[in-house]
Structure formats: C-alpha cells, structure tokens
C-alpha cells in the first residue's frame, strides 16, 4: 500500500515536472526576413521612425528608413505595425542561471570556497533550464554575463544568451574576464551587547593589496616562462595579463576605485573595468584619464550616505555620461529582478540622461565594456540578429510590452512559468 502511494506520488511529481518545463529553445529560420513598418532604436543613439530591419542566417543584413520589403522578393515579410524594435538588452554582472532560489543553498552555483578562484568558470554552471531565465527574457533582456561572486578573486565570467538547449548553445563569449573583489577600506562590525552596527577601518587593507600584487606578479612570471599548467590559479590570469580578457574590479567607494585603478596601472592591466559607483571628481577623472570604463549598479538604490543627494543614484548616469566616461549598467541585487534592467536605465531619464543614452547604457555600452560589441549591442549590419519587438517604450514599465524576441535570428518563446500560472488561474476564475 505504502509503496503504491510512493509510486503514485512519484508519478504526480513527474507529470508536474513535465508541465513546469521551460519552452524549447528558438529555432533558426533559413533565408531572409524583412521586418518593416517599425520604429527602430539602433542602440547607438540613432532612431529610425519608420524603417525596416533585414536579417539573414542569424545576422543583420540591412537596417534602413522606409519599407525594404520590395527589395527582397523571396524574403519572409513581417509588418510589425508601427511597433518598436530594440537591440536585445545586455545584462552584465549577474548570477542568472547560476542560481534558482536565493535562500536555498543547494540551488546556488556562483560562489566557490576560498579567496583566489581565478580558475573557476561560470559558464559550465549556467543552467539554461532555469525557470527564472524565461521571465527575464520576457522583458527584453536577451544576454547575460554569468558572473561568479565571493572571495577576493571570484572566478571567470562568460557572456551567455538567454536561450539555448544547454550552456554550449547559449554561449556568446567564453571566459571574457576575471572578477576581482577589491578589498574594502572599511569593515562592518556588529556589537551584540549594544545592538549597534559600526564601520571601522579595515586594518588588513594594505596587506590584502600586497597579496594581490604578489599574485599578479607571480602570474606574470609564470606566463613568461611558459609554465602554463603548473598552477591553475596563476595560469587562469593569462588572458587578463596578455590583454585579451578583462579584469573586472568590484569596488565599494571612490577611494577603493582610485586604488584599483593604480593597481591596474602598476600591473599593466590592459582591459580593466570598474564595477560599482563613484561620485567624486577625483575618481571620475581617474576613470577618464586612464580610459577605464565603469559598470554602475541600478538606479534603484538608496543614497550611500544620509547626507547624500536624495536622487544621487538617479543622477549618477548623467554625471558620468557628461564627463565622457564609457558607462554601462547592471542590475545589482537579484538575478530574478533583472527583468527590471530596462526600467532602472529609464529611471535616469528624468534626471538628465536622454532616452537614447539610457538605452545605449544597457545595449551598446554594456557590449563595448564586455567586448561583445562586434556581435551585439546595436542593430547594425553584420551583427547578430538579436533584437526585441515591443508595443511601446521599453524603458518605461507603463508602456513596455515585449511581443517578440529574436536571438541570432531565431524567434524565442516569451512564455514562462509565471504566465502559465496566471493563465491557469485566469481560467479558474473565468477572467482575462
């Protein structure tokens, strides 16, 4: 009897699993497709009010004013009816696909044990079957940088598409960079006797930097002697040291950013990227002078200090843009909230930024910073046909409604678990 029940339960579980599966990956279509009657946001600031986008074999072959349908006789023709076409949104610095449920440790695959993990690679943990991925894709985010966390050197990230049968399929760029958590100048302590929290100077700050210097110096020596496979951690730094891969440095404040930039200069890091927020003239000038790009966190943050400008975070993108810094934006906090990335970029528009700049921050700029701008980031000839079609302004939740999405020319499903659940209960209540 008992056994039977167990079997029955097993059966139910299996059937539920089947129901809960993600939609199949998009299939590429052979031949040419022309999307006409579209408002096209190229991503580099250019907007075409009524234009056409032509794709073939997963690549963009033409983007132009007017209806190009006539020029492609045998092409598949899609009149989008005045809808908007945007490049697929790029979400850097993210654990999407690396974790499923935040509080459940067994679903977490983004943080390895230890301080120096330059050898670990995020891409192989990227789970294309994550139920969270389709919900993020639904809002137009089509590319993510699967990024490891924790320790001093967290590991290596990879740029992934939000669609694919497996991580090999979904891969856009493997091992694009190494992630360094710059040591913090301040440490936080909690006093249980008084119940107060206080920040103190980190006494080990310089020691940790010294350790990093040593690590980089040894990696360099090792590379020059071609002892590539003796030490996995050191040889994992090769790409960064040769200037092929990026060194992403997460900083907590302006002083840390300044120290991090000096560190990169001293160690001749060719492609450094600062990740975090800086506000002071000194730090911003250091970025500018050394041509270091920055990926800033979402506008949806509280000011860092009580006395700070109330809208400090909303105003920061404009401040950095007006200084001529290459600025990208990521959705800090939570992978599952990444579907809000277009909106947090949009939030900077009321505070100085133009809509085109806000869009480029999460498309072209992110692509440039991650080194994928030859493939994606704008709707330009030769690039991947990775784009979305929406009913309105993608940056404003009031109007953003993505109706179709394409990755490398293949239309991807916009269905997700949440939509299915909504559908299920809509039909229960007989509502729409």
């Amino acid at each position, binding site marked *: 009897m008992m056994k039977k029940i167990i079997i029955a339960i097993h059966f139910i579980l299996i059937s539920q699993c089947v129901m809960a599966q993600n939609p199949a990956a998009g299939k590429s279509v052979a031949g040419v497709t022309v999307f006409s009657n579209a408002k096209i946001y190229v991503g580099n600031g250019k907007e075409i009010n009524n234009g056409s986008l032509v794709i073939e074999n997963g690549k963009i072959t033409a983007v132009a004013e007017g209806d190009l349908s006539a020029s492609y006789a045998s092409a598949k023709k899609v009149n989008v009816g005045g809808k908007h076409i945007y490049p697929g949104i790029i979400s850097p610095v993210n654990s999407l696909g690396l974790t499923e449920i935040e509080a459940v440790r067994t679903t977490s695959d983004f943080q390895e044990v230890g301080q120096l993990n330059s050898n670990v690679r995020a891409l192989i943990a990227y789970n294309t079957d994550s139920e969270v991925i389709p919900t993020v894709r639904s809002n137009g985010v089509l590319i993510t940088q699967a990024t490891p966390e924790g320790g001093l050197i967290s590991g290596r990230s990879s740029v992934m598409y939000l669609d694919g049968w497996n991580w090999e399929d979904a891969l856009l760029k493997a091992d694009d960079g190494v992630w360094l*958590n710059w040591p913090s100048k301040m440490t936080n302590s*909690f006093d249980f006797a008084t119940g107060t929290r206080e920040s103190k100077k980190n006494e080990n700050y310089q020691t940790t930097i010294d350790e990093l210097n040593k690590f980089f110096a040894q990696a360099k020596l090792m590379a020059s002697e071609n002892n590539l496979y003796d030490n996995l951690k050191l040889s994992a730094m090769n790409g960064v040291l040769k200037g092929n891969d990026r060194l992403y440095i997460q900083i907590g404040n302006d002083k840390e950013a300044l120290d991090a930039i000096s560190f990169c200069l001293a160690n001749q890091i060719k492609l450094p990227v600062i990740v975090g927020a800086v506000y*002071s003239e000194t730090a911003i000038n250091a970025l500018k002078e050394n041509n270091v790009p920055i990926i800033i966190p979402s506008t949806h943050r509280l000011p860092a*200090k*009580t006395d700070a400008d109330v809208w400090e975070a909303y105003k920061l993108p404009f401040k950095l843009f007006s200084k001529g810094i290459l600025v990208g934006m990521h959705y800090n906090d939570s*992978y599952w909230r990444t579907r809000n990335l277009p909106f947090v970029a949009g939030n900077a528009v009321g505070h100085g930024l133009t809509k085109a700049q806000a869009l480029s921050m999460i498309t072209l700029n992110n692509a440039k910073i991650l080194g994928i701008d030859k493939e994606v980031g704008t709707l330009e000839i030769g690039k991947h046909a990775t784009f979305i079609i929406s009913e309105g302004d993608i940056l404003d939740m009031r109007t953003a409604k993505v109706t179709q999405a394409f990755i490398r020319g293949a239309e991807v499903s916009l269905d997700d678990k*949440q939509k299915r*659940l909504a559908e299920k*209960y809509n039909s229960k*209540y007989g509502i729409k």
Partner: protein
Amino acid sequence: MKRLFLFLLNLFGLGLAAYAQPTFHENGVRDKRPEYSLFKNATIHVDGKTTISNGWLLIKGDRIEKVGKDFEFPKSAQVYDLAGKHIYPGFVDVYSDYGMPEIKRTRGGNFYETQFNSQKDGAYYWNQAIKPETKAAEIFKANPKGAEDLRKIGFGAVVSHSKDGIARGNSALVSLANGKENEVLLKSDVSAHFSFEKGSSTQTYPVSLMGSVALLRQAYYDATWLKNGGSSSERNLSLEALSGSMTLPAVFHGKSILDALRADKIGKEFGQKYILKSGGDDYQRIDEIKKLNTHIIAPINFPKALDVEDPLDAESVSLTDLKHWELAPTNLGKLASNQISFSITSSDLVDKSHFFGNLQKAVAHGLDKGAALDALTNQPAKAFKIDNLVGSIKTGLIANFLISNEDIFDAKAKLLENWVQGQKFVITDLSLSAINGKYKVNIPGFTKLEITGENDKPALEFFENDTTKIKATTVRDRNFLTISYKKKEAGSYRLSGFIADKKISGEGKDPNGQTFIWSATLEEATAEKAKTDTTKKAELPKVGDLVYPFVAFGNPSIPAKQDLLIKNATIWTNESDGNITGDVLVKNGKIETVGKNLSAPGAKVVDGTGKHLTNGIIDEHSHIALFSINEVETVSSEVRQEDVVNSEDINIYRQLAGGVTTSQLLHGSADCIGGQSAIIKLKWGETAENLIIPNSPKFIKFALGENVKRGNAPQAPNRYPSTRMGVEQVFNDAFTRAIAYKKEWTNYNNQKVKTGLIAPRRDLELDALVEILDGKRNITCHSYVQSEINMLMKLADSLGFKVNTLTHILEGYKVADKMKARNINASTFSDWWAYKMEVKEAIPYNAAIMTKVGVNTAINSDDAEMARRLNQEAAKTILYGGLTEEQAWKTVTLNPAKMLHLDDRLGSIKKGKDADLVLWTDNPLSVYAKPEKTIIDGTIYFDLENESSKFKSVETEKNRIIQKLLLEKSKGTPTVRPTTRTRPSDIHCDAILEYDGVSVENLDEYLEKMNNQN
C-alpha cells in the same frame, strides 16, 4: 622608623573610623577631639543665587553648624582664614555608579538558541532584565580611587545605582569621604532607576526597544496586581520591590531626546513623573523637553573633534555628527535659559579631568554660572529629595563644601580643598611656596638658573652664558627638589636641593661620583601671570542653526500649512470623475474645492499646467522610521511600533521625494503574532508623536511561513513552531487564551458591586488579541503560500475573528475567491519572487488577478528603497495583467486607504479629505515622472523647486563646520577619526529581518558579505 610610621598611620585611620561609628567596639583609649572648625572671611556661595561676602562657616564634625557673619563660636574651634577665597557647596552627582559592582555584559539573546526563562535564582520576576529588587545600599562598596577622582572635580556626594537592566532598582546617597561604608552611606533608597537596555540579562526577550517598553509596562501592571492581592499563591520579590518604590523619585536613563519622550509616555501611564537622564541632545528639541516639565540630568561630556583633513573621509561624516559636535556645548545653557530644572552629571565623562574644562566651555556657550552651580548642587538635591543632606551651605546639612581661590567657573580658578563630611581633602596645594624666578647659581660652568612652570611642577634651566642653556629634569616634593641634567660631553649630574626663603641649596654628584655643594639665590621673582578668563567673553561663539529633524535636509523650522490653489493640472481624482483637468483649492489642510477656474485670494497659487496632481502614495507595508522591527516571542502582540517611531530617519524625506505621504509601520515577520502597527504621515520635522495619525485605526502584524518557523536558520531552532502545523496551533492557543481572558474580564466588569473583588491581571499580550476579537484591531498578516493562507482564514472563521489584510500574499491569486468571500484585502509586491522557497510560485500577475476577482488590492514596498518609486511599481500592474491606469494608480492610493480604514480621510481628491497631494512632472505611472511638490495636510514637505538649494545648504553647512574642525586641529585639539555609521544608531539586530531583506538567521553571513564587498 618606617614601621613605626606606618603603624601610627594605621592607628590614626582606625581612630577616625571609630569616631563616627558609635556602635563599633574600640580597641584602645578613646580619642575624642574638639569637633568644631570655623572658616572665616570667604565669599560663601550658598547656592547659585545667594552669596555671603566675608562669610563665616562653622562646622561640627560632619555637619554644618552655622553660616553667617561674625557670630559667636566655640573657643575650641579650629579657625581657618579664607580671605579672598570662595566656598561652594560640594557638588552632587545624582547619576553615578560609584561603588557599584562591575557589570559583566554577555552577548545575550541568541537567535537560534532562545533562552526563554530567567536564569536568576530566587523568588524574582520571570525576566532577568527586571530587577527592581537591587538595592544600591546593600551592594555598595567604598572605592578610594573612584572617590578621589570625583573629589578632584568637586564632588562630595553621589547618588549611586547599578546601571544594569530595564528596572535597575534603588539608588543610595553616599559621600566621597574616606571611611567604612557605615559612615559614608548617607541614605538608602533615594530613587528608583529604569532604562530601555536589558544589560547583562542573558534572557533572549526582549531583543528590541519596543520589547523593553512592553516588558516594563507589564511589570508595572503585574506589580500593582500583586500588591492588590491578585494572587495568593505567588510571592515575587521583584514586583514587591517595584510597587514599593513607586513613591520614590524615578529616574529614566535615555540616550537621546527621543528616549526622553518615549520614557515620559510610559511614566504617564503609571503616574510616574520620571526624572530623565539625557543624552546631551536636549537642545535639538528644547521645547519638547520643556513641555515634559520634569527634571533633566544632563551629561557634561561633549563629542570629540573629528579628524576631517582627508576630504574623501570627511564625506563620510554626517551633518548630524558635525552639528552635534558644534552644538553639544550649548546644551546646558539651553536647559538653563529655558528654565528647565536640571542637574549636571559627570557620569558619562570617561576622563574626569575634563570636567572643569567642559564646564567652562558650557559657560562660554551661554550657561549662566549661577545656573551651573545650582545644577551641580541644590537642583539635583531637590529633585532627589536629599536637599536636607547635601546641595547647599545650610545649617544641619552634611559638611560638604569646596574652597577655591577664584570663582570656580573661571579658567584661572583652582579648586584648593574639597571638604567631605567634615574631612579635608587638599586638591591643589597653594601652601607650596612660589619658587619661579631667576637665580644666581654657584655651580661651576653656570651663571644663572631660571625656574618656570607650576609650583608643584617646576621647570629648571641652567644658563652657561646668556644664550646657552641646559634643561634639567626636576621633581618637587614639598620643600625638596631632585634635579638632574646632562652636560654635552659628560654624563649626568644629579642634585638635591632644599627650598628655603629665596634660596635653594644642597649637594650634588657629578658623573664621576664626586660630591659637591651648590646653592642658588633668588635675584628676581616672576610675577604670577593672570590667566585670561575664558568665561567672561561677552560674545557667544557663533554656532549653526538648528534643523528639524536634526538630520541633513531638515528644515530651519517645522513647515507650516498654507492655503494652496493648484491650477490647471491633470487631476487623478480616484473618484467616479476619473481624471479631469482643473484646479484644486486646499484650505486649512483639507481639500476645499475641486473644480475649474477657481480663484482664492490669499492662497498660494501653483501652476499645474502639463502636470499631474494625485493623492499622496500610501505605503501599506513599511519599516522606515523605526528603531526596532521585530520582537522575539512567538506571540509578541504586547509590543507597539508607535513606541519606537524615529522622527529623524532620512528615509522619511527620501520617500517624500518619491510621493509617499502615509506609511503603515509594521512589525517584522519573525513572530506568528507580531506587534501593533503605527500609521504615520511623513511630516518631516515633526516629533514621533506628531507623525502618528491621530486616532488612526488599530492594526497588528501576524505572520506565517518560513520566517516564523525560522526555516532558513542554519541550524534547527529551539523555538516553537518549526512547521506550518505548529503555526496553526500557535494561533489556536493564543486565541483560546484570549477568549478565556476576555471572559474573565467580562465577568469582573459585569459585577455591580466590586468591593472585595480583585480585578484580573492585565495581560498586554492578550489585551491586543481581545481587541481583535472585539473587532477593534485589524490584522495584517504576512503570508505567501495558499495552504497557510487557507489555514488562517479557516481558523479565523472558527475562532470568531476577522483577517483584514493579507500582506505579501504572493499566492493570493490562488485563493482570491476565498479572500473575496471574506472581504479580505490584499497588499502585495508587484513582481517579487524566487528569493526563497515559499515564493517559488509568486507571479507578477498576482495583483491584477486579485483585482479582477474583486479583492481590494494594494502594492506595497516593505523596503525603504522601493517605497521611493511605488508609482513605478503600481505601473507594473498594467504591464503584468493589464489593469487600467486608473486601477493601477489606486493600488498605491485609494486601495491601501481602504484597507487601513482611512478612506474617509485619504485616498482620493474630494472635498473635505486631507490635503495629501503630489504634483508630478509627468504621468505618475511613468518611469520618467518625479514629484514636484509633496503636500501633507496642506503643508509642502517636498519641493523640487528648492531641492537643489537644500542640498547645497547641506554641503555649505558641512563645509563650514569642517573648516572649524580643521582650525581646532591646527590648534592642537586632539581629534578622532570619523567612523561611518551606515545606519541611524540604536538599530537593533532584530531590525535586520525584512528591513534589509535579510533575516536575523542570516545576519552573520550578511555582515560577512558586507565586509567582503564594502
């Protein structure tokens, strides 16, 4: 010889002791001396207002015999002529822990291992933090070193108590004389002491400030009930002590002005007028302190100057800290000039030697000298009803008085002697002869000797000729000098010298050990330099203005309401008219007219052309402006958020800048039955009391699921419940108890004749539940999954209470029909999910589905950041689920107003409703919109027009004070490196739950993460 001397000293000490202890047996021959001393010709400062010039003071033993002029006195009296000197009453510190045992603090309160019961042996209260049975007189142990430190700064007597726990017990008045406890203990049970801190208690409850309030209130009720004979089976020494001390002066220890206001509220409930120990910030809201009409014990320690040389570090210093540094020295003066009865305590002064310096600083910042003296003597004595013993120079009082050479508050003044209980203690020995001057010296190689420095610490320099000189190291022991110096090539010379009139002579040894004779003869004595009196400057130092609240973006005065006419805006009425273009007239804080082409002479006209006018946003689920969020008991209905509202939280202003005008401040979700909610309006600058909406409907927080069962704890918790099964039983049990309790009271209340009857015990926990049963308190229940929601609804049905609101309710879409049937409101997030197991099936279509089924649905924040953009969150209901713009907007305005039962006043733009309005630059549901004006009760609290100038003035004011600090540093004032406070102080660890999106169970991990990242 030496041994004999020590022996004599010992004997002398014993003799003294025996003298005052008639009940003790004497070993030897009685040695009773004449007991009279007369002090003549002094300026006697009887108190701050009365002085007797050329006054006489006669003491007999340890008492003052007579004060006056030229009176008859016993011939046996020893006479001291104090011409030119001043006599003051010995200072009294009424907030001391002198002679009390050291308090061992433990980490206390572990979240995984709850300590439910007291670990104190004996017939005491159930909670270790309530220890009114502590009697300072019984645990007092005289401490010579401590007494000396206090005597040096003028104190003669202190009221001492053990500073440990919430109810701390009774104090004792002790003198700082030498002697056995029997002699120096002047009075026991002087005052009863209280605080909000549980101190060394290892018991987990309470973990929060509001829990401390509730625990103390319950203890008072219990004490009264037992005293009235409530139980024949329980003896409780703690409660007996508590009720026994109700007639004593009661002192409440506060760390800030907000604590003072909080304590006063408790006092009112129990007929206790607390004397309030202040945190030194009374000046920040001096009118409120004055209104309390009580005695204040103010500290004399001031914040240290901050090191702000590095501009990037200086950034991290808050305006609050900077301003407090500048204004703290004005505190005592502010108390005095506002005629507030106050005393000064040195108890918070770590280095007691700063006492007079700080006092002079306070005088320089406007403290009247007479008031200062009163605050150190008769004011504390009167407040503590010990003015028959200490506090002034009056016949019959203890002979505690000070002798100084000048007005004691002058910088050049020296405290010469401190007489305590008739015992003389020399503080500065002026009998040391002055030796400063230029001497002719007969040591070979030297022509001259110059002595400078203090009498007791002379500095010597030997002159080889007019220009070359050698510094010597010198120690003075009354009439003896020990001198050593080094000459260039040779080693050390050592001299000893005896000081005689105008001559110093003695012998010396050169580096080779050869002895020689030396002497120095005074040629020219140095005239004593008069120090400048820093306190006599007529001009007060320039300090910055106060701001309300005392935080960046505070206003120079509390904003006032005004009549407003907003013209030609798109008005989102939330009424049947929908959106209209027109005008709104605001009068006297209310909406007067909604219409077209209105005019109102005298009203401020605001052009709304192209803009949108809406109601203020109502956040149904908020935790801002609170000092604590969670208590720790499974049933914590006794705690109240209104007890811990923080009017100084910057998030109030930040949310005004996001169009929020009303917030329900909820207890966290750590407990099945949480605390009572507070509903506030974000009236930036008002006191906590004024933020709370008067007569707002009563609410309470319930919670289900992972948080209450502590499902995310790294180890199995020992607190019940740990399953959803147990959660049901917690509610079942609590309401079963509440029903019985209600019945008990109903029976009692129905008795026509109550003589001989004892009222049932007041139980604050059950009181709140009875209010729920009676429909007077509404439940807001934190809930996620459909099974538990269903459970609560069924349980409520069966026990006869109503669930008003389900908050979070992320699976509400699965039970919307059941909620609709019971008329339960829903307050949810727009799009949260996946952060824990129980939100795995949360969907952003939730709000839309519930709305369409007919459930009154709101979007809330539960987060200080998200609350700043609830308009955007509301807009997501259009994206997910297709609500209309009007429906979407109501989820953050009218719908929460309805579920808070405030829709008769709030939630729509209609004549007669509160003028809580926001003028937006764009459609409020757009990501591009920002508030241009946020208005509450007709008062503009946020104005985009002067937002940038407001921010600039924060920067300007910070810079002004930083300049001042840099000047201090250049003057050599010691500075401390600033520490960043990431939070307002006093946030308890319990506050972490939900507030940061981090549960208490994950606190360690969270802090580690913070350390690694920032």
